[in-house]
């Protein structure tokens, strides 16, 4: 049985921009990974950008993965409907000054990813952007970061805890995905340069959009494959 991993557009963008989309087919073949995207994410990273010249190359490469069944698109009305409910809940967790001024923090694509996790019995959410990841891992940290920017921010802390509980799935970033693939031979074709290429790929992912800290980069640099 495939290990289903729901993918947010942020991670796929990072992997595409660093020529690391091959990690997906590598893990699919060697570990029976089943990479899934909801319809809105497909439109975000394939449909819409394919019509804009400067983004069309990345869109075409990702579309190829869909055509080759490396990326599986799940599109049905129940996902969209569940995503609406998730968005409504997420977008009422925090407010500006008063609870009747909720802050919109998630949009459709991110909510559809969350909506797919349970029905597909997923192993993880692949996501580079921080808000969705923090909602799963540490919503209190997200709240404190928001308060640091805007001190009058408030939160429904009970709803925050319930939201986190609803999604007991690990969040994984493109860096962990690539590092795991590296540990299992993804960069072996580079022979003696294997480690150098692996370490360089982490830097590349950082600057392509995977928001990792300098300490995390340093920790990846210490890894030997």
């Amino acid at each position: 049985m495939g290990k289903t991993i729901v993918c947010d557009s942020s991670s796929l963008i990072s992997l595409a921009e660093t020529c690391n989309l091959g990690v997906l087919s590598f893990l699919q073949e060697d570990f029976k990974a089943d990479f899934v995207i909801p319809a809105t994410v497909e439109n975000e990273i394939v449909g819409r950008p394919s019509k804009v010249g400067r983004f069309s190359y990345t869109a075409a490469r990702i579309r190829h993965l869909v055509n080759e069944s490396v990326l599986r698109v799940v599109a049905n009305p129940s996902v969209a409907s569940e995503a609406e409910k998730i968005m409504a809940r997420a977008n009422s967790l925090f407010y500006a000054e008063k609870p009747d001024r909720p802050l919109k923090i998630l949009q459709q694509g991110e909510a559809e990813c969350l909506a797919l996790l349970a029905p597909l019995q997923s192993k993880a959410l692949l996501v580079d952007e921080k808000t969705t990841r923090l909602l799963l891992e540490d919503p209190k940290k997200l709240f404190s970061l928001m308060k640091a920017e805007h001190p009058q921010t408030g939160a429904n802390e009970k709803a925050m805890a319930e939201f986190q509980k609803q999604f007991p799935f690990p969040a994984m970033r493109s860096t962990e995905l690539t590092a795991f693939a590296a540990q299992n031979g993804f960069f072996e074709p580079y022979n003696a340069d294997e480690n150098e290429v692996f370490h360089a790929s982490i830097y590349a992912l950082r600057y392509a959009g995977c928001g990792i800290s300098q300490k995390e980069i340093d920790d990846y640099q210490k890894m030997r494959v």
Partner: protein
Amino acid sequence: MDFKQHLILLRKAFEKSNIPELKRLSGEFAGDAFIHYRKENIQMSIIAYACAKFLEKPYILADPAWDSFRKSLLSLLEKALQDWSSGKQAPAFAKVAKALSLIERLGADLGRFVFGIIEKAKLKAGAEIYAHGASLGTAAELSGAEKKELSSYIAATRMPEKYVTKSVAQRMQDAKKIFS
């Protein structure tokens, strides 16, 4: 800060060619855009940033198009303020949108530089919104910046330093479990 205050401060800063204040307002307007989820705040943020950058370039100030642009922009902002003060929200917003179009039209005279400023302004606004707590998708949607470019722009800042939860070692353990 309310919208009327935004208009007053923007108009004043531009009239006085106050570059630091325009840049400061650009960030503040973007933050307020997240608080109110209002695109007009983003437009104001872009206008403020673009004006700051224009004022930094002597060749732009010397260009024949500049005087006419300056007069038109000040007039639009003044009229938007009058509309807002009279309770006419939609006409006020329309004038802000028109002010942004003025800046975009300036590109016809000044070329690629103007286009680059507007795109940069959207990225800065998007990054500000992201810093306030919005997801990448929400920040891109509200600011009008492209997700891919916004993601890369944010990653090059010090923002990711704040978002650490688990250690790399823990994450790699998780990955091992996920694929086992």
